[in-house]
């Protein structure tokens, strides 16, 4: 049953790729289609309300300006609300205002789709903040990322000057994808016992006569967009391990598919835009191959259990159950971990700090590469970036000018791609080193030995990849951590997005090179191999030393 239930979920996902991908393609193709009749009137109302008179295409600079401006306004409003939540309505549990650096961290965390949480939802946020700041940003940050990904795909697959209209993409991502899907999944989750109420914390008298307070709230509505938008910030501190957020294996499967279906179908969407579906399937296969590699590492490592506990003479045949829930057991926990770090969601249904060293390495590795499906659009852009790099490397080897989708890849694009590829390890390794050199950073470590290194490394990897899960033992609610991870999340998202929009803007204007027999094809098995090779070689060169000091050292010590 262990492997079978994983295989079933994988099969359902693969079956979803085509229908979901087709739907998403029609949302953003801007060609008239049946969806317009259903959503058109509502969208025209929104265009009117926001004052969008012309939906003409934008250059990459205008596109970037538009999404940045929108995000800046949302950040400003959200920050103010967190700082004054005490005085606002819907605060039945009387929660106070949030401290400055924590508010900064929280707002950056949610607008960048990271959802790293240095606070605990049940004690740190009013219901108003949970709704108006957290849920709202879960929608808007996901819609922003999705729009940018689509714009990037338009840039590398079409000719002309424009990569689309940001505001139109942003509105449609909400009205046609995130809002309807979230309402549907919310109701499904409530049917499976996830609470959705505005009542304050419950008080009950237990069977033994003690008083138990039970935090509750509008959980289901947050739960659905948390996964569909690959956000990952939990309503409660322990996220999807909490029985109210994720009461059964069935809700677990729904949450896994909710966060995975859109990122997994994006390569297919790309194939449709490129008018060559094989292109999309090559990218999808490369992602899936890497995913299965990491999933196996995590699954079998957790199944093997903790050698130190196995040696105590108890029945440890179930595997490593510290930090996991009985209803999920090993298979539903490891699958969830592999998907959440692949899709950069960052929601957790088991505590990643308690993972066996190699299990934790699997989670770390997926975020370090940041190309295995990836969050709202980011994974696809990243993978295409590696695809262009792969083409470039092959071009160098045979001495031809590299081409990708009929466009010459030239120094300008390669410089931008180099910036984006180098920014990721830079944002991880430099702050990690700084944290180890200062007492402010070292003081947060709660697990001794090599695992302490993993804790710090994981925090910055998760921030830079905009994942948001954590080795949560880390005592991270201090100004040092709030500010440093806040900046890493900020740069991790925006440097990358702007560089990639610039690449798209540069490619969209290029002359198309006609395809000949000498053209290096990017839709066959050879390229699939080259792509995986490029990703693994660059990843290994960058991160191997850090991994050896953390998880691998701990693994060797545990035996």
């Amino acid at each position, binding site marked *: 049953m262990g492997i079978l239930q994983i295989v079933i979920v994988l099969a359902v996902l693969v079956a979803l790729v085509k229908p979901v991908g087709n739907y998403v393609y029609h949302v953003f193709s801007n060609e008239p289609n049946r969806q317009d009749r259903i959503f058109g009137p509502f969208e025209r109302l929104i265009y009117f309300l926001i004052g969008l008179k012309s939906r003409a295409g934008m250059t990459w600079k205008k596109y970037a300006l538009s999404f940045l401006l929108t995000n800046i306004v949302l950040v400003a409003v959200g920050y103010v609300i967190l700082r004054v939540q005490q005085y606002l309505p819907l605060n039945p549990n009387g929660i106070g205002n949030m401290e400055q650096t924590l508010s900064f961290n929280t707002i950056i965390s949610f607008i960048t789709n990271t959802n790293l949480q240095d606070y605990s939802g049940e004690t740190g946020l009013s219901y108003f903040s949970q709704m108006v700041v957290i849920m709202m940003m879960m929608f808007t940050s996901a819609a922003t990322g999705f729009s940018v990904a689509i714009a990037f795909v338009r840039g590398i697959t079409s000719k002309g000057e424009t990569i689309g209209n940001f505001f139109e993409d942003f509105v449609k991502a909400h009205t046609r994808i995130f809002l309807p899907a979230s309402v549907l999944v919310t109701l499904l989750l409530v049917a499976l016992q996830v609470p959705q*109420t505005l009542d304050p914390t419950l008080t009950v008298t237990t069977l033994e006569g003690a008083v138990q307070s039970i935090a509750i709230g509008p959980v289901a509505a947050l739960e659905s967009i948390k996964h569909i938008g690959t956000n990952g910030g939990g309503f409660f501190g322990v996220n999807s391990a909490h029985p109210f957020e994720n009461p059964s294996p069935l809700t677990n499967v729904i949450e896994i598919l909710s966060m995975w279906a859109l990122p997994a179908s994006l390569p297919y969407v790309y194939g449709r835009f490129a008018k060559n579906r094989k292109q999309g399937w090559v990218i999808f296969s490369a992602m899936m191959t890497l995913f299965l590699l990491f999933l196996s590492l995590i699954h079998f490592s957790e199944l093997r259990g903790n050698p130190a506990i196995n040696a105590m003479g108890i029945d440890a045949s179930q595997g490593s159950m510290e930090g996991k829930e009985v209803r999920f*057991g090993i298979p539903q926990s490891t699958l969830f971990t592999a998907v959440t770090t692949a899709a950069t969601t960052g929601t957790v249904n088991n505590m990643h700090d308690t993972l066996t060293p190699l299990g934790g390495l699997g989670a770390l590795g997926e975020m370090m590469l940041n190309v295995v499906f990836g969050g709202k659009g980011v994974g696809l852009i990243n993978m295409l970036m590696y695809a262009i790099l792969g083409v470039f490397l092959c071009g160098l080897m045979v001495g031809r000018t590299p081409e990708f989708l009929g466009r010459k890849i030239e120094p300008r694009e390669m410089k931008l791609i180099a910036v984006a590829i180098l920014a990721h390890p830079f944002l991880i390794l430099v702050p990690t080193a700084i944290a180890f050199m200062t007492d402010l950073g070292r003081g947060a470590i709660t697990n001794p030995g090599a695992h302490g290194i993993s804790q710090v490394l994981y925090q910055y990897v998760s921030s830079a990849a905009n994942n948001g899960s954590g080795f949560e033992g880390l005592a991270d609610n201090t100004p040092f951590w709030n500010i440093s991870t806040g900046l890493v999340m900020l740069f991790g998202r925006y440097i990358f997005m702007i560089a990639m929009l610039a690449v798209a803007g540069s490619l969209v204007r290029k002359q198309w090179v006609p395809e000949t027999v000498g053209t290096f094809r990017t839709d066959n098995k050879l390229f699939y191999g080259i792509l995986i090779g490029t990703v693994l070689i660059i990843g290994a060169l960058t991160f191997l030393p850090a991994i050896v000091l953390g998880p691998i050292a701990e693994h060797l010590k545990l035996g």
Partner: protein
Amino acid sequence: MNRIANLPGSTGISYVAIAVRASIVFIILCGIIYPLTCTGIAQLLMPHNANGSLIKDSSGNAIGSELIGQKFADPKYFQGRVSSIDYKAEASGSNNYAPSNPDMLQRTRDSIEAWKKDNPDVPISKLPVALITNSGSGLDPHITPESAEVQIPRISKLTGVLAADLERLVSKHTESRDLGVFGEPRVNVLKLNIELQALLK
């Protein structure tokens, strides 16, 4: 796609205006209308689930949520998993102990010693790992069926209820995998103990 935004009014300033208005519209739509609509529908159609799946006694007092574990200090009840927060459900969490953490290893050794003392009839080779490890949430409402089985000799001795009756109780409360395949078989400790209590009366 081939049109370009060069129309009058597509300057930087008008972008700011659109960005501000778009933000307001989506704050209201996603932050207020969406959650309130969901709450309304959920409360109307599924009030029991939407309000936390509470279990009430015969006089209508809530004794817990079937989804949230409770602390059982009395050894005559079935015990749940280790919870570093003692099942205090106003918060949630655990110690986040690494597999190499000496405190966690010591806690586990202590649990094994305590088990030997309280359950002399069951060798520790039968003690399931799930029972003496901390759940992720600290609120896990379930134990594995094996974790319930191994507690039967102790409970039978303390309460005088026949082991066979307890066996029947445990198998009655063993929930199978969802749809026959997803997750793990499990026993809800609170529901099991409610019935055990009725048996004791």
